[in-house]
């Protein structure tokens, strides 16, 4: 026997297509918002995931990866001397002022680490070599940040404060959607960038003082200063860093090592790599409005879906009220009719879900490739969205079911 639900659905193809477009819109909205939220959460901690560290040592007042008061470099040496530590490297994160090749300025973050060290070896380098960071005033950037930095290829240059910065490598999947552009550099370069201020050069000419631009390219021949900057100074014990990343010796109990470090260095907090990622993700999700805004978007999508599907099912049931009344007059129980309406809702859910998912996956690939924005649609999320879509459609059917429940079978006798 033909499915009444399916046939009712396809009875009026244009209306069906309009309905499916509405459902697709709603499902896509929910999927994209959820995907962006998931991608955002994932991206805020992906650098930590890729660090390869067992433990992170930070200031006791550390909030998250990018909000952590500095600790002295001496902590690194102290950690290295501890039993159970295989090796440890510093990580310095600072905010700087980036000047693009076209002279526009923007805020960026410098991540200073040990090139060729034990950490951040899991990067996906699209171009260049990490080893090139040993050259002073060079950096690696995520390809998602190139637009912000106004750079295009290896060798392009900009300024950090009054110091030059040359792009020597391009990575992918290291940048968070929400943080600004990141410059991965050597610790020494990062230290120099952090210390650099804005230099205002003034000269006295004919008794008058003329001050030049604060930010200028020292390599520019028209610039007031044509001499290249001297190499960065070696870092000292007093230099500030943000974290000490460490790898424990094989079979070392991490909890024990954590307690040992915290006992020896009372001004520090020690967390595992997973905890660090969770702290950072949780910060962005709960302590900023981003999670709420994206969640709200998904909720709006859900509500839109409920409204669209409700209207379509209600209209469909209203159109076939006499036929449903006929079934009731024959003696069909209400459940027979509920099943028809529910099946219709399920068809709408599935037929709305499938193209939406294809659309969202395509959109996700496009945004990742062109904007570096991660719309993360995992199988679990795809399954969850299917569940939400089914709940949305079947829930919407309740209005139609309520309508048909109150149909007086005597309606069938009205011509």
């Amino acid at each position, binding site marked *: *026997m033909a499915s009444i639900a399916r046939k009712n659905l396809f009875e009026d193809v244009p209306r069906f297509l309009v309905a499916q477009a509405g459902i697709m819109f709603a499902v896509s909205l929910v999927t994209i918002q959820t995907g962006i939220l998931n991608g955002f959460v994932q991206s805020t901690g992906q650098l930590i995931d890729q660090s390869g560290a067992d433990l992170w040592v930070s200031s006791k007042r550390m909030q998250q990866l990018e909000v952590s008061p500095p600790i002295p470099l001496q902590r690194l040496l102290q950690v290295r001397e501890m039993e159970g530590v295989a090796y440890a490297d510093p990580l310095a994160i600072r905010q700087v002022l980036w000047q693009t090749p076209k002279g526009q300025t923007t805020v960026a973050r410098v991540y200073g680490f040990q090139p060729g060290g034990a950490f951040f070896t899991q990067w996906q380098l699209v171009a260049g070599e990490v080893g090139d960071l040993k050259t002073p005033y060079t950096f690696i950037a995520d390809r998602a940040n190139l637009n912000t930095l106004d750079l295009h290829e290896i060798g392009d240059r900009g300024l950090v404060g009054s110091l030059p910065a040359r792009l020597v490598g391009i990575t992918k999947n290291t940048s968070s959607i929400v943080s600004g552009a990141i410059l991965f550099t050597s610790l020494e370069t990062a230290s120099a960038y952090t210390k650099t201020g804005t230099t205002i050069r003034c000269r006295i000419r004919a008794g008058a003082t003329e001050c030049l631009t604060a930010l200028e390219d020292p390599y520019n021949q028209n610039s007031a200063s044509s001499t290249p900057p001297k190499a960065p100074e070696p870092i000292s014990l007093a230099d500030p860093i943000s974290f000490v990343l460490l790898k424990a010796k094989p079979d070392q109990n991490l909890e024990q090592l954590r307690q040992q470090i915290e006992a020896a260095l009372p001004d520090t907090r020690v967390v595992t790599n997973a905890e660090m990622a969770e702290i950072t993700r949780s910060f962005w999700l709960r302590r900023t409005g981003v999670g709420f805004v994206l969640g709200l978007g998904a909720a709006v999508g859900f509500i839109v879906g409920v409204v669209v599907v409700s209207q379509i099912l209600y209209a469909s049931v209203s159109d076939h009220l006499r036929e449903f009344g006929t079934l009731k007059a024959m003696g069909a129980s209400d459940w027979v009719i509920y099943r028809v309406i529910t099946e219709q809702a399920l068809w709408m859910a599935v037929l709305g879900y499938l193209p939406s998912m294809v659309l969202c996956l395509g959109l996700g690939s496009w945004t990742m490739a062109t904007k570096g924005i991660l719309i993360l649609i995992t199988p679990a999320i795809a399954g969850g969205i299917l569940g939400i879509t089914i709940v949305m459609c079947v829930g919407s059917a309740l209005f139609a079911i309520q309508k048909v429940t109150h149909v007086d079978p005597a309606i069938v006798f009205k011509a």
Partner: protein
Amino acid sequence: MTLSQTRPTQSIFNGSYAASTPLISSFRNSMAVVASGVEMVYDSGAEPYAVLRGIDLEIQKGDVQLLMGPSGSGKTTLLSILGGILTPTAGKVFLMGQEITGMTRNQLAKFRLKNVGFIFQGFNLFPALTAAENVEVALKVKGLRGLQARRQVAIELLEQVGLADRMHHLPKDLSGGQKQRVAIARALAGDPHIIMADEPTASLDSQSGHAVIELLRQLAKNAGRTVLIVTHDPRLVDAADRITYLEDGMIHG
């Protein structure tokens, strides 16, 4: 054809129909429909409005019974009550020997499922389903299991109404007469004892109307079904065994 006002003696109907004296039992077995003192009053507006007033009626098994009368006389309301779709505000209705006025909504639905087939003026076919599928839906509702079995029975029923060759057509591709014949085939699903038809020829032209009338008569005579038809159509008078006139909610002789 016998033109009669069917008003039984009050002694038989005073709540004693279900009793089992030999006389009453014999009477009960010969009747498909018995209505006793049926009233229907609506509480709409300032004053109650009585649509039916003290209707007493019996219809013999195998008869084609017409229920005629002017618009607003209460014919369709009486049909709804006799078909177990509406419950009267007073009185009793017995179908195939069972009192239906005391049944719950679910009991009534189950009773209709087994015993009553309906035909409507507006056909009420699912427009998205073919002729055969419309019949199959009814068969499924009536509890016939198996896709093949339902398809086979649907074809047989459509053959009975002379529409086997149109079984794959949608209602929009059928004429009014053909649609009504599909509706009749659907009403026959589950082999009900009683067919109740509301103005079955009102939307049909003369030729289609006659075909439907003849079909309904055959259904009654060949299979021993009782057919109750509400109609304005004088063409149906010749097909009827009995005719009851209703006016102002009362039966008139």
